[in-house]
């Protein structure tokens, strides 16, 4: 089904398909042997491998710089909730909890909205409206993280503290997740800020995915007498796996996000079920404590936190790209 969409081949000569399948292959076929060309080709290769190799270099250097904490704490580093620099007891569990919960909250808010926008852009908006709308949504991605943090502390947090959290707490306060302090800095505020930050990427990838669904699907649904919304449901169904890819890509972004979260999450390393209360994330812990790490073990523990963060986002990104690729067949893979 999806294989029926092939990207437009812009380098096809007018006389029909050429004998070679790709630009790369043709260039190689046309390659006149010469020392300068040899040097050129392999120096571009060197740079390409250099960038790709950075991924490996990051893993290796972080592993080397976390040997002390790995040796001392082993696997218990992952499950231990204590983070006590004074007594040199370090565990990542409280930070992992904060990272996961704030990111999942962000997804809960961001995914429905992003899908709504993507459906609006692809299925409903006329072209002259679709362009400026997607342009404005993408501008949200251009705003720096630290600026979202500023806005979070000085605008959003006071608003939530005054007008949103107290009513929710008085209405639903019997639920443990809505109990606890409501000073505005905490998991929920971080989740909301993260949601605004990841909407552009989830929207962009979902838009690509929805565009890749063949029009025959829509025509078939309309021909069966489906309404506009029912047709959209058919399209969403066909794009299912690609949309999950978009969602997971958004999750990866939320998990790795640093500055805005550091500024609004309240920075308290404990596992608590109160969503309005303060928490801490892996990225925030590194951002706040790295320059203050006085002992080697302390620093190695922080680097190990970074390594955990890297591995989580790596796995998530690989998964997301595979899912998006099953729908778009590489068309939208340049998004990142």
């Amino acid at each position, binding site marked *: 089904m999806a294989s029926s969409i092939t990207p437009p081949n812009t380098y096809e000569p007018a006389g029909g398909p050429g004998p070679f399948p790709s630009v*790369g292959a043709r260039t190689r076929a046309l390659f006149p042997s010469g020392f300068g060309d040899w040097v050129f080709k392999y120096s571009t290769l060197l740079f390409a491998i250099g960038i790709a190799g950075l991924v490996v270099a990051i893993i290796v*250097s972080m592993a080397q710089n976390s040997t002390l904490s790995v040796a001392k704490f082993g696997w218990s580093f992952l499950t231990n909730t204590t983070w006590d620099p004074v007594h040199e007891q370090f565990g990542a569990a409280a930070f992992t909890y904060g990272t996961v919960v704030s990111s999942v909250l962000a997804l809960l808010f961001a995914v429905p909205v992003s899908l709504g926008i993507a459906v609006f852009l692809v299925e409903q908006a006329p072209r002259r409206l679709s362009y400026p709308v997607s342009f404005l949504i993408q501008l949200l991605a251009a705003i*720096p993280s630290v*600026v979202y943090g500023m806005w979070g502390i000085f605008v959003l947090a006071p608003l939530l503290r005054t007008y949103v959290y107290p009513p929710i707490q008085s209405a639903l306060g019997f639920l443990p997740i809505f109990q606890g302090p409501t000073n505005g800095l905490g998991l929920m505020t971080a989740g909301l800020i993260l949601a605004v930050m990841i909407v552009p990427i989830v929207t962009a990838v979902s838009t690509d995915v929805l565009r890749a669904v063949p029009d025959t699907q829509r025509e078939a649904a309309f021909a069966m007498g489906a309404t506009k919304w029912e047709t959209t449901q058919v399209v969403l169904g066909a794009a299912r796996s690609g949309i999950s890819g978009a969602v997971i890509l958004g999750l990866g972004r939320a998990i790795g996000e640093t*500055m805005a979260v550091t500024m609004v999450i309240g920075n308290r390393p404990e596992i608590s079920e109160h969503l309005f209360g303060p928490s801490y994330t892996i990225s925030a812990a590194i951002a706040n404590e790295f320059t203050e790490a006085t002992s080697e073990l302390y620093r190695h523990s922080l680097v190990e936190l970074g390594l955990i963060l890297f591995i989580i986002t790596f796995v998530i990104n690989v998964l997301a790209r595979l899912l998006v690729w099953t729908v778009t067949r590489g068309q939208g893979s340049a998004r990142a």
Partner: protein
Amino acid sequence: MAVSGSAEFPVLTADFNLRRRKLKSRVMTGLTMACAVLLIGILLAILLYISATGIRQLSLGFLVNNPKPVGESGSGIANAIVGTFILIAIATVIGLPVGIMAGIYLSEFASSKFGRVVRFLIDTLTGVPSIVVGVFAWTVIVHPMGHFSALAGGVGLAIIMMPIVARTTEEMIKLVPHSLREASLALGAPVWRMSLGVVLRTAAAGVATGAMLAIARIAGETAPLLFTALSYNYMSTDINQPIASLTYQIYYYAGSPYEEWHSMAWAATLVLVGMILVINVAVLSVVRRRA
């Protein structure tokens, strides 16, 4: 003509009340538009708040003076502006050539299998959290050298820039018609001249666009600078020393207890966001005109 619902066609379950279905359709499509309106509203709210709050503190003196202690008037962010430009310059000098060469490799030479692996790793690098890049830059530069430096910050930013430039360069170069390559080879040009003098030159506008977007992106990064470039309270252009940056300054002022520093943070935010948005809007409107 039984269009009754079945397991295979869950969407078309038999609801023959056309009016109800049409109403539902209208409500749902309306909701999708509401989502777009909501997010655009948030964007405008943020931008308007930044402008309204930042403009109060903004003055010529703010742009040309260095920071002063709390309570003293005439404090400014000149060193942070200069620092941000120096950091961007270091990152660009390293990141741009590397990214462009890698992009040329991906589109011109990469065999499909090996190319896919390289492309995949480069895409992965784009998804690496910027704080992790900061830790990496610390371990490879700050730690061995023994002190914080603008160079380390610039390298961190370059790492974020390279994959973006590589991928946009690849996409742009792929758009160059093959007839141009053939023509230059037919004139006897070696491949390296064809790639740099004809293909890259034809795609130059597109590559520049990608580079500008990458610069706009790194201009707003804070996390990779926290323990590399750090900050510095005076004007400095020494890349071997810590250096101030707009983003770090905003973070620092926002976290302080002083009302006065908060308003300076807003003004610095206005400068930073203005810079980044001007680049984005300019680049994207150029792209659109060509599309």
